[in-house]
């Protein structure tokens, strides 16, 4: 029986336009449960099938069937949503409808239990105890602000009110990969419930460093989450979620494209420690709900790379960062008659410090510095004082902003009209300090071929500076939907998206290298602000879609067009022989279609499929004097495809049921460069599972497999120091996962 708070909240939510049946997510699609109300979903449409947007939602059991425990698992399942697995868990590159970013700001926002994660470098982590995951595609900037230009991912963990239980999980798979976790949920009183979850994963990976024989992509991670919900009255609800995680990862299994071999002599790793706490306070009146969502986030990570990714002693990079994040979102939602609204104010502050030295080593000095210099003056060649020196960089950054937003809806008969507007202001400042103390000798080649010392030149750099930028954006949205009776609705949606500007401090290594060359008399010394700063990127998203459903099926379809302006890119200035800069250099168009469907022809069988097609091209973009107009945007697949079948086998044991599922994930082709000269063809992988489970959901044993076809494909491509590198996808994997739940008394 719902409590008074749940009734009040339901009344407020039900003032919104209602639609028909729930989305079936399992073989038991017709079974309805009034779930414990979670206030985190209040900001966006509580029922995604009523949204005037393309949304893919997967719930807990389905996520388990597909073995999804992180946002990456939704790749291809949500049409036109692609999150490749490469590099490390720091490289959370997400591509939606052709839009994406490998550097700095993301195009997709992420919330976990309503807490917005400010840094995409912390997007990729495993979460157990997931209740549901959503991928909203298209511009979601009006409600979610900065960096939701192409979409929004919302992850919700299970409510502590879900029933007192202790769930344990253990699993083992190929690559010496084992997982273990547990969730304990209990009600401390009639008004307080709490849950505590812990998760660990260890893997030896699948790739080896041919130079040392050691495994490269090892991973050790652990996390814990403590969630407490308190309902002191019929109108009040407070939920606090504290989470911490630790990650130690090898990562970066990049193979040289010409040989297919991973071989390097310097270490590569990624280490990360995170902490977050989010407090949600809601007050529900008869027709209004007011919510405050406060969060604090901490990120401490260290990325160290053999930056040439070869066995040569060229150069290494370390990037150590400490970052805090504070957010506050105050919003109210209410209704009166056919009119409903949502309005709020959001603010954030994100201070961080970073230390990012680049070490030049023997062969790097020889090939990148001495060789170029000595080509210009072979009679007086130089020789560096030492065979190793450091270009040091320290940064202190402050990023903050606020936003005001409002959304109004009016329902008249079968029509619903929405209009929304957001004003977003952001300030970004950077203090940088670059240092280098080294030097070189100039020799004189004598007629007999011997050399004599000519002069010594010290190279001392100790410079610092400050930069700041302000951005402001008005982000409107207009949408219209029409209910087609019980079968569903259709909609039109026009919205503006926005990706924040800022400073890409990774480019400072280019600034320093250019400075070094300039001190030696070559090249142009770039102004840091010209190289590392970039303005916001904006887009206009136009889409039309439909959400349809019947007794045993649902279907969604969307067509879209996106006009992106001031696209953030790294380019080579016209005429430059060295050095790249961050810039807003391009305009792009993206158009396509998306379709997904779920069909349960009989109670024991569910078939699911989704398909996305994107045609994304540059409309204007010039780099190094070359125009790339008409070229396909790289790194995003033209097609994504997902198909799955889940069935319960007719054979039922006395205490268990057997189910099995198979799925196909496919994507491609993917161009690797702006000039569209190299690509990954369309590829597909097969996954499957067989699960024996207790009928009361007490225990389960799951045998699973991923990429059972052992499809070979590449997930990433880049060029460094004149060499091309690829990362291969993980080979076939298989394993076993066991779950057991204990009922826990109050």
């Amino acid at each position, binding site marked *: 029986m719902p409590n008074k708070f749940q009734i009040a909240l339901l009344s407020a939510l039900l003032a919104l336009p209602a639609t028909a049946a729930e989305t079936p997510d399992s073989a038991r699609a017709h079974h309805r449960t009034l779930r414990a109300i979670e206030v985190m979903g209040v900001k966006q449409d509580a029922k995604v099938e009523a949204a005037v947007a393309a949304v893919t939602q997967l719930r807990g059991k389905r996520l388990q069937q597909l073995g999804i425990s992180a946002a990456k698992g939704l790749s291809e399942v949500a049409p036109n949503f692609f999150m490749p697995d490469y590099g490390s868990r720091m490289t959370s590159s997400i591509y939606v409808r052709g839009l994406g970013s490998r550097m700095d700001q993301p195009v997709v926002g992420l919330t976990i239990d309503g807490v917005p994660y400010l840094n995409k470098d912390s997007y990729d982590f495993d979460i157990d105890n997931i209740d549901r995951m959503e991928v909203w595609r298209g511009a979601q900037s009006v409600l979610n602000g900065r960096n939701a230009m192409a979409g929004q991912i919302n992850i919700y963990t299970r409510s502590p009110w879900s029933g007192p239980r202790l769930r344990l999980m253990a699993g083992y798979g190929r690559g010496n990969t084992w997982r273990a976790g547990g969730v304990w949920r209990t009600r401390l009183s009639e008004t307080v419930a709490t849950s505590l979850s812990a998760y660990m994963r260890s893997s030896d990976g699948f790739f080896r460093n041919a130079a040392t024989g050691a495994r490269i992509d090892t991973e050790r991670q652990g996390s814990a989450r403590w969630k407490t919900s308190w309902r002191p009255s019929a109108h009040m609800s407070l939920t606090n979620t504290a989470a911490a995680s630790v990650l130690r990862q090898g990562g970066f299994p990049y193979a040289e494209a010409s040989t297919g071999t991973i071989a390097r002599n310097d270490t590569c790793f990624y280490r990360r420690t995170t902490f977050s706490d989010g407090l949600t306070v809601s007050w529900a009146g008869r027709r209004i709900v007011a919510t405050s969502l406060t969060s604090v986030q901490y990120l401490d990570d260290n990325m160290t790379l053999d930056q040439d990714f070869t066995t040569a002693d060229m150069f290494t990079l370390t990037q150590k960062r400490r970052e805090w994040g504070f957010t506050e979102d105050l919003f109210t939602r209410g209704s009166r008659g056919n009119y409903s609204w949502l309005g709020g104010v959001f603010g954030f502050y994100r201070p961080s410090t970073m230390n990012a030295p680049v070490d030049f080593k023997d062969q790097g000095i020889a090939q990148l510095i001495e060789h170029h210099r000595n080509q210009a003056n072979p*009679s007086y060649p130089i020789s560096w004082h030492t065979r190793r020196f450091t270009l040091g960089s320290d940064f202190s950054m402050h990023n903050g902003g606020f936003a005001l937003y409002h959304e109004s809806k009016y329902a008249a008969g079968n029509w619903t009209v929405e209009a929304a507007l957001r004003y977003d202001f952001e300030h970004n400042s950077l203090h940088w300090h670059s240092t280098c103390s080294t030097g070189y000798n100039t020799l004189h080649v004598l007629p007999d071929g011997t050399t004599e010392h000519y002069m010594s030149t010290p190279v001392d750099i100790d410079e610092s500076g400050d930069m700041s930028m302000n951005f402001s954006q008005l982000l409107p949205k207009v949408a219209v939907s029409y209910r087609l009776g019980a079968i569903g609705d259709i909609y039109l949606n026009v919205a503006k998206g926005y990706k924040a500007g800022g400073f890409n401090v990774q480019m400072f290594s280019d600034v320093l290298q250019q400075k070094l060359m*300039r001190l030696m*008399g070559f*090249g*142009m010394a770039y102004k840091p602000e*010209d190289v590392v700063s970039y303005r916001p990127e904006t887009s206009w998203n136009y889409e039309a879609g439909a959400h349809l459903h019947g007794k045993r099926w649902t279907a969604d379809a969307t067509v879209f067009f996106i006009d992106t302006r001031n696209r953030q890119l790294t380019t080579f200035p016209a005429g430059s*022989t060295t050095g790249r800069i961050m810039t807003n250099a391009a305009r792009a168009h993206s158009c396509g279609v998306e379709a997904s469907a779920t069909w349960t022809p009989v109670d024991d069988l569910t078939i699911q499929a989704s398909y996305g097609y994107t045609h994304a091209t540059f409309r204007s973009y010039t780099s190094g004097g070359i125009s790339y107009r008409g070229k396909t945007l790289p790194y995003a697949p033209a097609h994504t495809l997902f198909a799955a079948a889940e069935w319960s086998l007719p054979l039922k044991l006395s205490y268990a049921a057997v189910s099995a599922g198979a799925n196909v994930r496919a994507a491609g082709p993917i161009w690797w460069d702006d000039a569209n000269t190299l690509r990954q063809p369309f590829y597909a992988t097969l996954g499957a599972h067989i699960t024996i489970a207790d009928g009361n959901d007490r225990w389960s044993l799951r045998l699973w497999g991923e990429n059972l076809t052992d499809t070979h494909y590449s997930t990433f491509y880049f060029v460094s120091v004149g060499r091309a590198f690829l990362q291969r996808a993980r080979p076939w994997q298989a394993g076993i996962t066991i779950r057991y739940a204990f009922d826990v008394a109050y």
Partner: protein
Amino acid sequence: MNRFKTILWAVAVAAMALTTSCLNSDNTEQKTTENINSAIAYTIDRLTGQTVSEQSISLEILTNYTALTMGFTLNNFTLPDGKVLPKATFADLPLKMNDTGWMLAEDTNVLPTAEGFAAETMPMFSSVRIGAINHVADLMDQTVVGYERAIRMEISNYVIYITRPSTWSTGTTYATDQSTGTSFKSTKPIYLVNLDTEKHTARITVYNAVFAQAMENLNLEIEFRDIPYSFDANGNIRLVRNEEFDPYHKDTPNPSFPISNLSCTLNIFSGITISFNCEAMGGNYHVAADMPFNYGLKSETTQQ
């Protein structure tokens, strides 16, 4: 900061600081005073065309924007007859209208006022002209400013010229491949001329040096050192070094770009012209540039 900018900025800042600090607070007149601590003064015998003397002096330039006059004071200046003027002021020369971008002031039959010198023996200068022009250029994304000051005085059969021993200019550099005849031009190079009055040699520093099209984006900085200079009968400063020599790059000679037949003329009221031959990037190039100090300053001219 490199040597070029160090020199220019030191001069410019000193000049501007002094100008600013000496901005007359008189309620009725607006004046500026500019100090040049080290200037080169050379005297040409108009009859023979020979250089009579060369000396280093200091001077102050006073500009009255209200009265539209310019004047200057010379310190420890030696006249052609050997007499030394401890301090001589040529005041209130009327500014002349012109559209060249220069501030030009001149007068005839000018009798300076002097300290420490008997007034009755002060010679009359048959003509005195002073010119000033400021010009700017972009160098490595920073704006550099040049303050050209030039004085010409006639006394008896002598002409005296006074200017700074360091100057720069830019314009269009033409590089012609001697073997193919193809020509390439660039407005990137900036030429800085430094006169060493003790050694009586000059150094020409070329920033963004372009001798061939392939060099345009190298942003190379090279120096031509130990170039003898002299003064011609018209008061121009001539820098000539015909034999082949190696330019310097970051204080290191570079035999990869030998220079020959170098000729550079500095007209202190006009600008710099330069020409030389260079072997570079496998070719033999003739490089020439005509660079007036008012390059890009006229309204109908934009820097290409």
